[in-house]
């Protein structure tokens, strides 16, 4: 869930922040050579559709888990949330903790067995099995369309960051990164994308971990850091929950109900359990246990990401000699904006070599995000649109070839989108909003489909449609009349962040209510149709004979305890 404001605000930055030494450039070039080598090496492993689109379903829990996390860990995400931490304080960590961990564990323990046992290729594929073709078509077409647009936006964002941070030519960045991604994904398919995502995971941690370590040394430890932040901007910046009792008590202008119900429930569960971009990585696992362990492993590491993203933003509040501002003020004053906080901290502590590693981590993040979008698009296009609606009975070789070609075409469309966004910046704002329209209702549809036997195909379709339409309507309402925000968020103190939370919550409620009402008005599905798709009609293999430390539920419990401890510690 990238922070969209980061891109728009970077647009106006007038100069670049970092000068690279020759050793830094060598490190970046080695990275490009390495990812291409992975693609060429894995080409021979992509011989069938299952190989290309689901990596042969051979991935271990660790590879699927790290890839599952990396697909979400783009550079825009890193830079955007570091900026948010500077602007809003530790509240930004909610997007990594309550906004991710419970949903990832829920996916692993409750929802994944249905995805995995049904042997679906995709989330729209599950909707077809559970609700029929109309629901799949609605979900697949919107997902494919939005995924390509998002890919183009990510591509443009990367080029923009490279321009702002390094002064690189924007066209050079777009074409070099796109061609590289097109080559390694078209050659090796999902396996190639997953292996590069695992590589990216290590590069991000090794490239970014030095900032909080050195920052804490400079600040004199966490206690001194908190005291310095309290002196500079106020004590509310280092409290996770204690300031959420009122919209007006915290820098984000949000209430705990919005964080818990909007972010922690609807947005988070919608994204982590139904966005095919991340779910696809888990479906590539070699067996059900590996598939269930993958999100748990991902959750364990996700819980630690704030230490390399949020902590640098907080450190900047204490150690940077200048005050960062919004982009408009930064342009007017010739200073720096919030969104430059991560590159500024990188340049503050990292000399030659380390700087190259940090920049490589940013590039790797962008390219993996792009590859994630393209692999998800090619799978949904090939299986859920082309095979379902255009050519039903072609050979596996034909679909494999289609997958390779639509990877290339997908990249080209993404490049076109990137150039379109360059000309008409407001498109980006709309696309980010559009993408969010589908996530919350889709979660309602899939959740009811998996857990409620009485849910019917008509209920699923109309609920999904109604939820999406209500989300769009609420968004339009606030655009046309900004005062509507106080009605949607139930408070006149609500700010922009609160709108997304409450819009998601309302659209999810509409989806669930319509699904339930329509289902009760239509004929109940036959039990035979629901085998392997719904709780109560599916035989999930027992883990009873496994030792405790091998059971996913045990490790989910360990992660959950860590999550609770962190929230209490930073209360």
């Amino acid at each position, binding site marked *: 869930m990238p922070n969209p404001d980061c891109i728009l605000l970077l647009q106006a930055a007038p100069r670049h922040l970092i000068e690279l030494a020759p050793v830094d450039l060598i490190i970046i070039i080695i990275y490009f050579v390495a990812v291409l080598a992975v693609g060429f090496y*894995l080409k021979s492993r992509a011989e069938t559709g299952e190989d290309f689109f689901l990596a042969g379903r051979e991935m271990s829990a660790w590879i699927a888990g790290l890839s599952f996390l990396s697909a979400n860990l783009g550079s825009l995400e890193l830079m955007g949330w570091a900026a948010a931490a500077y602007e809003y304080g530790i509240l930004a960590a909610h997007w990594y903790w309550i906004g991710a961990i419970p949903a990832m564990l829920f996916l692993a323990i409750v929802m994944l067995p249905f995805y995995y046992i049904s042997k679906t290729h995709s989330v729209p594929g599950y909707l077809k099995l559970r609700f029929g073709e109309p629901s799949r078509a609605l979900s697949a077409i919107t997902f494919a369309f939005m995924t390509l647009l998002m890919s183009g936006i990510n591509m443009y964002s990367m080029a923009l960051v490279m321009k702002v941070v390094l002064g690189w030519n924007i066209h050079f960045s777009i074409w070099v990164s796109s061609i590289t991604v097109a080559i390694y994904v078209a050659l090796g398919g999902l396996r190639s994308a997953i292996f590069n995502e695992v590589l990216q995971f290590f590069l991000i941690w090794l490239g970014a971990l030095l900032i909080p370590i050195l920052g804490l040394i400079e600040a004199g430890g966490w206690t001194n850091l908190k005291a310095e932040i309290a002196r500079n901007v106020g004590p509310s910046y280092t409290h996770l929950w204690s300031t959420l009792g009122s919209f007006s008590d915290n820098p984000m202008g949000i209430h705990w109900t919005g964080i818990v119900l909007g972010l922690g429930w609807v947005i988070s569960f919608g994204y982590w359990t139904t966005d095919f971009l991340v779910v696809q990585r888990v479906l590539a696992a070699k067996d059900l246990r590996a598939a269930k362990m993958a999100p748990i492993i991902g959750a364990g590491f996700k819980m630690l990401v704030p230490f390399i993203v949020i902590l640098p933003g907080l450190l900047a509040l204490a150690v940077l000699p200048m005050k960062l501002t919004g982009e408009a003020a930064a342009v007017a004053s010739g200073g720096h904006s919030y969104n430059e906080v991560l590159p500024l901290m990188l340049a503050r502590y990292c*000399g030659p070599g380390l700087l190259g590693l940090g920049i490589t981590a940013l590039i790797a993040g962008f390219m993996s995000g792009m590859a994630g979008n393209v692999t998800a698009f090619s799978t949904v296009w090939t299986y859920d649109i082309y095979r379902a609606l255009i050519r039903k009975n072609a050979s596996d070789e034909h679909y494999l070839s289609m997958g390779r070609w639509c990877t290339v075409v997908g990249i080209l469309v993404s490049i076109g989108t990137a150039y379109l966004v360059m000309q008409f910046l407001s498109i980006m704002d709309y696309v980010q909003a559009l993408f969010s329209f589908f996530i919350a209702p889709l979660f309602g549809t899939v959740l009811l489909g998996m857990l409620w036997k009485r849910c019917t195909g008509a209920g699923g379709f109309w609920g999904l449609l109604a939820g999406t339409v209500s989300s769009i309507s609420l968004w339009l309402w606030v655009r046309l009349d900004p005062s509507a925000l106080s009605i949607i968020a139930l408070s006149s103190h609500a700010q922009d962040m609160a709108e997304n939370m409450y819009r998601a919550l309302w659209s999810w409620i509409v989806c669930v209510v319509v699904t339930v009402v329509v289902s009760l008005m239509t004929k109940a599905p036959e039990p035979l149709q629901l085998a392997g798709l719904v709780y109560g009609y599916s035989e999930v293999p027992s883990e009873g004979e496994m030792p405790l430390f091998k059971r996913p539920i045990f490790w989910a419990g360990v992660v959950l305890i860590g999550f609770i401890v962190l929230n209490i510690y930073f209360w």
Partner: protein
Amino acid sequence: MSREPEKFSIWFFIGSLILIYGILILAAGIRVAIFPPAAPVVLAHLHAGIWWGALLIVFGGTYAYLFRPTKRGQ
């Protein structure tokens, strides 16, 4: 799945890349320690490049050794 696993494990590949990065960063760190730049980074006296490079060499070298091509598996 009866197919042969990859000849090179992904972990070997990652370990090798990190090892190479460690060598480059360590070398750059030593160079900076011997010839300090006119505008050093904050906490330059800690020589982060040297010990971070050494750490990468140990980490990457260990992975590359443990998952070298004679051993199979992901």
